[in-house]
């Protein structure tokens, strides 16, 4: 009975409108949160496409182009550089030969470099070497494979290879240092788009440098930087002032990632704005409802109904509006996840249901937070209304 009294000014259509406007805001919010979660992998530094948070720098040729310890220390002190890693190169000559069955082998001079493992974009448990191991894993640039497949292999009649079978190609390395010469078996573990060099594990390079050319010191002629934003103008300005060179491609990729993040942030902001506005709308409406029923509320209270008895009616309304909004928003964002899936797969985003789980958790948190807020707000409003002296009854003398 108290329900009918307190709800007499409530219009269902009005409440539905509020629920839908809240769902719009919450929906945008959830969709963007979901996009953020789903596209995390492309912003991640492990991805070649957009996650390029590394920048390789080197000095102009024609001068002593090794980086000194002081220069590296200076780089590390810059606020926009989080980590630096030097490319160490082998202090010995490298002769690599590959033998294909039924074909003449190829022998080529080459070089080996190593970089700290934290900069390697390939996660493979075989990427390791320790003294005594027979085989050395090697990472080569991806375009070397193309060069071989479409250039060398076609013209010389050798078989073409792909990244899978490349591992099976046995390579014999002959390393000749100042001190002695040693042979190692090697295989190509993977191909990297990020680092344009022939890499071996750091432990292998340190070991061979020491044992083959103990009196030569390795110079660092290229540095890999872990940066917050490779297209940061301050960073580029700093590098230019020092006359350090970098690959402009890395910077372009990072700009793309930056723009994508910016767009997502703007949409997130709009979603937040709409959510806040619709929340405000719901609150204003609850206020209006309470105000319209002021007489009924005070009379009920003075009849012996407690504040919570009365507030409960309005809590139920607010909770229903909120629940409808969140459920609609959640359904919209889950549907959109499947609509977006083909587009995201172009960006090499793996389809995962994890984001739905996160979304549900976030929705529950939003529901609880807003429910508590509405509850508090309603209680305060009704509390003010039923205070002594402010009532409609006290006008009787």
């Amino acid at each position, binding site marked *: *009975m*108290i329900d009918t*009294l307190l709800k*007499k000014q409530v219009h269902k259509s009005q409440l539905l409108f509020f629920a839908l406007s809240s769902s719009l805001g919450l929906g945008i919010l959830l969709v963007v949160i979901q996009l953020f979660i789903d596209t995390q992998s492309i912003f991640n530094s492990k991805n070649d496409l957009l996650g390029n948070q590394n920048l390789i720098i080197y000095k102009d040729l024609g001068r002593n182009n090794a980086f000194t310890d002081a220069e590296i220390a200076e780089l590390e002190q810059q606020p926009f550089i989080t980590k630096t890693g030097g490319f160490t190169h082998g202090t010995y000559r490298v002769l690599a030969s590959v033998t294909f069955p039924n074909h003449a082998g190829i022998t080529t001079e080459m070089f080996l470099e190593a970089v700290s493992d934290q900069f390697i974009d390939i996660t493979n448990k075989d990427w390791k070497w320790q003294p005594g191991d027979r085989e050395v894993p090697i990472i080569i640039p991806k375009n070397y494979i193309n060069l071989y497949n479409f250039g060398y292999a076609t013209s010389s009649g050798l078989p073409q290879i792909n990244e899978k079978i490349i591992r099976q190609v046995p390579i014999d390395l002959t390393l000749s240092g100042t001190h002695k010469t040693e042979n190692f078996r090697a295989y190509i573990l993977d191909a990297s788009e990020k680092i344009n060099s022939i890499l071996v594990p750091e432990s292998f390079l340190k070991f061979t440098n020491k044992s083959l050319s103990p009196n030569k010191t390795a110079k660092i002629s290229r540095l890999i930087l872990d940066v917050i934003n490779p297209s940061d103008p301050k960073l580029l300005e700093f590098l230019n002032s020092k006359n350090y060179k970098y690959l402009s491609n890395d910077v372009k990729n990072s700009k793309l990632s930056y723009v994508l993040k910016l767009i997502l942030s703007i949409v997130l902001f709009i979603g937040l704005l709409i959510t806040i506005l619709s929340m405000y709308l719901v609150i204003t409406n609850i206020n209006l409802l309470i105000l319209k029923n002021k007489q*009924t509320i005070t*009379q009920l*209270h*003075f*009849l*012996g*109904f*407690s*504040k919570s008895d009365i507030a409960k009616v309005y809590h139920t309304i607010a909770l229903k509006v909120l629940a409808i909004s969140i459920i609609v928003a959640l359904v919209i964002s889950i549907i959109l996840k499947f609509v977006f899936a083909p587009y995201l797969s172009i960006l090499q985003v793996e389809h995962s249901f994890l984001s739905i789980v996160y979304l549900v958790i976030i929705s529950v948190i939003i529901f609880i937070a807003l429910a508590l807020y509405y509850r508090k707000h309603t209680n305060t409003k009704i*509390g003010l209304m*039923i205070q*002594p*002296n402010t*009532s409609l*009854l*006290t006008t*009787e*003398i």
Partner: protein
Amino acid sequence: MQIHIQSINPDFFTPASSEVWSKNFELHANSSYLIQAVSGSGKSSFFNFLYGLNNRYSGTILFENKSISTFSESDWTNIRKQQISIVFQGLRLFPELTAFENIQLKNGLTNHKSKPDILEMMSRLDIAQLADKKAETLSYGQQQRVAIIRALCQPFELLLLDEPFSHIDNNQINNAIALINQEVTQNNATLVIASLGDTYNINYTKTFLL
């Protein structure tokens, strides 16, 4: 309930000298009091002070030796459910509810009376046939009788009636007083009636001129 009134005076108007304002007196259980006054002298204000709707007064009101200014909102809610019942001068019925619903709304808080009890009380005041009529369609005298029955549908130690019979004929007044007396006795309660002049043939413990 033992009620001590210690020289209270409203803050929002200056009353003429009377037997209530600025005086010390007590209201006892199993007693009836009449507050007799002309219009505008502050009867309803006095009732509102006792009922906790208004606290703009100086002086002290004690229920069982406890100052009512210390009561919290939930204390008052309990008091209004279990200890003090009131018929407002303006009745304060809900016009969109039926006569019976208005009574049941109050009764539902404590389930003090059963449905047949309520209907029996209604027929004693000759309004049983109006049980399903909306309050807004009833005459003021009929509404007054509904409000009186509503006030009796809870346990109480103090019953405040603010000009309860102003629009009721003498015959029904007698019926109402019989019903009220019966309930007050059952509850061992204090009865306080405010009236403009009529004394309604009740044997008052004391009459206050306001």
